[in-house]
């Protein structure tokens, strides 16, 4: 049961300022809190016998995915359906893209059919910003290249907040392929905005040179990163994005950076183990850890639906000020 003060807690902001969700970079701490608070209400909808509310009736959402995705695409689609929106999935393999149509032409043609929102996943960083300039519809970034994956960072934050009550003051350690990860870029911006102490760790070849400007601690010594951590987030070794030789072998990566039960003992007793998926078991994470008591990996997936419902709901009403002009 909530107390009366919780019932009436007034949020610092009641709407998002932008018509799109392109990245965490555009969100203030107050806007992030609004999304997370709204997601709490949305999570309850998923526990009902009838998991559907009429909020987005008559709205059309296009899911435009230029890269393979199981979790994110399914999660968005379930979120859209729970809010009663009409959804349309464009699978690039069977679309005109294979005939050579550009992203701009595809988007403008889709927009001619008046959707309200477009959820875009694309392999090029900045694809969502580009679309946002040429489209009237609200654009939601479902991952663009190596740039951002804002809804993943929001669902990670939601999952942490659910367990730890707040993000402020927590030591959050992120280990893995820091160079190619959009999940990392969204997460470090969100976590630092919310007052967490963020450590990032990986092989020196996979650490971007400008990473320190985000205000994070950087190390290649995995024990330093893990010690006293409240949250450990593991990132996938993205073999499909690796053209060079960044480390000798997957076995060696696991030996030096892999999350094992033994290594985990350095962290705080109630440490949370997170992974945005898909996991490479035996590379960045040992199976005993992935399936162990500290793992919240499946909670992350479950919370993804609630967080995406919150984003869809908050953007469906349009922007508060700036883009309205």
């Amino acid at each position, binding site marked *: *049961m909530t107390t009366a003060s919780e019932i009436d807690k007034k949020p610092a902001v009641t709407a998002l300022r932008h018509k799109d969700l392109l990245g965490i970079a555009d969100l203030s701490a107050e806007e992030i809190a609004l999304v997370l608070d709204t997601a709490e209400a949305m999570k309850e909808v998923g526990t009902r*016998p009838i998991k559907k*509310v*009429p*909020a987005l009736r008559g709205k059309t959402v296009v899911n435009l995915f230029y890269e393979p995705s199981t979790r994110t695409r399914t999660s968005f689609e379930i979120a859209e359906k729970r809010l009663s929106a009409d959804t349309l999935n464009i699978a690039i393999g069977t679309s005109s893209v294979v005939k050579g149509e550009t992203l701009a032409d595809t988007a403008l043609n889709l927009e001619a059919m008046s959707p309200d929102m477009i959820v875009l996943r694309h392999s090029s960083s900045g694809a969502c910003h580009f679309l946002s300039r040429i489209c009237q519809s609200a654009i939601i970034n479902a991952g663009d290249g190596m740039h951002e994956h804002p809804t993943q960072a929001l669902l990670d934050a939601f999952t942490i907040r659910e367990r730890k009550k707040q993000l402020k003051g927590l030591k959050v350690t992120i280990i893995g392929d820091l160079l190619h990860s959009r999940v990392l870029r969204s997460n470090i911006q969100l976590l630092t905005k919310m007052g967490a102490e963020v450590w990032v760790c990986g092989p020196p070849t996979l650490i971007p040179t400008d990473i320190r400007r985000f205000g994070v601690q950087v190390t290649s010594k995995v024990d330093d990163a893990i010690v006293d951590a409240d949250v450990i987030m593991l990132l996938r070794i993205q073999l499909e994005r690796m053209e060079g030789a960044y480390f000798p072998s997957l076995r060696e990566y696991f030996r030096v950076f892999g999350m094992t039960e033994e290594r985990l003992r350095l962290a705080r007793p109630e440490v949370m183990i997170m992974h945005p998926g898909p996991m490479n078991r035996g590379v960045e994470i040992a199976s005993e850890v992935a399936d162990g008591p500290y793992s919240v990996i499946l909670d992350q997936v479950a919370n993804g639906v609630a967080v995406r419902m919150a984003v869809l709901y908050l953007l469906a009403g349009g922007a508060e000020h700036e883009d309205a002009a």
Partner: protein
Amino acid sequence: MPVVMDADRIGRTLARIAHEIVERNKGVDDLALVGVRTRGVPLARRLARSLQEITGHDVPTGALDITLYRDDLMRHAVGPQPQVRRTEIQFSIDSRKILLVDDVLYTGRTTRAALDALIDFGRPKAIQLIVLVDRGHRELPIKADYVGKNLPTSLEESVQVRLLEIDGQDEVVVDGGAA
């Protein structure tokens, strides 16, 4: 800013409604209270306390947020969304008589949304509506079963219910309109 109900009057009114609930339902056996956020929730909790005192039985109490069911959601092309809060109904409403509690009954649109929301949780045996103030001007065919106070108002006036749990004091005031 005329005060039309003070703390004493609100207390006596809720006590009377609690007795009416027991009389009309011949006890509290299959009853449950559901407060409409925001101010229906503390009112429902107070009624549950009174019912406990009168009958010695606990009545399950929940909170309902109707935002996602509003009929004016998405009506404006551009505008901020009303804030969604958590619905908490931790009991089955199937085959129960649900006492829906709100502070003010006005157009009836909130009640319409609340009825739709409740039906998504199951099939109650009946739904009865309790309001602290009925200010008239209905736009839908909705009527309260228990009314704390009938308060004839003009459309220009606004009725504010303030409650201890949220606003720090109990009172009902009417603002605006022609003097």
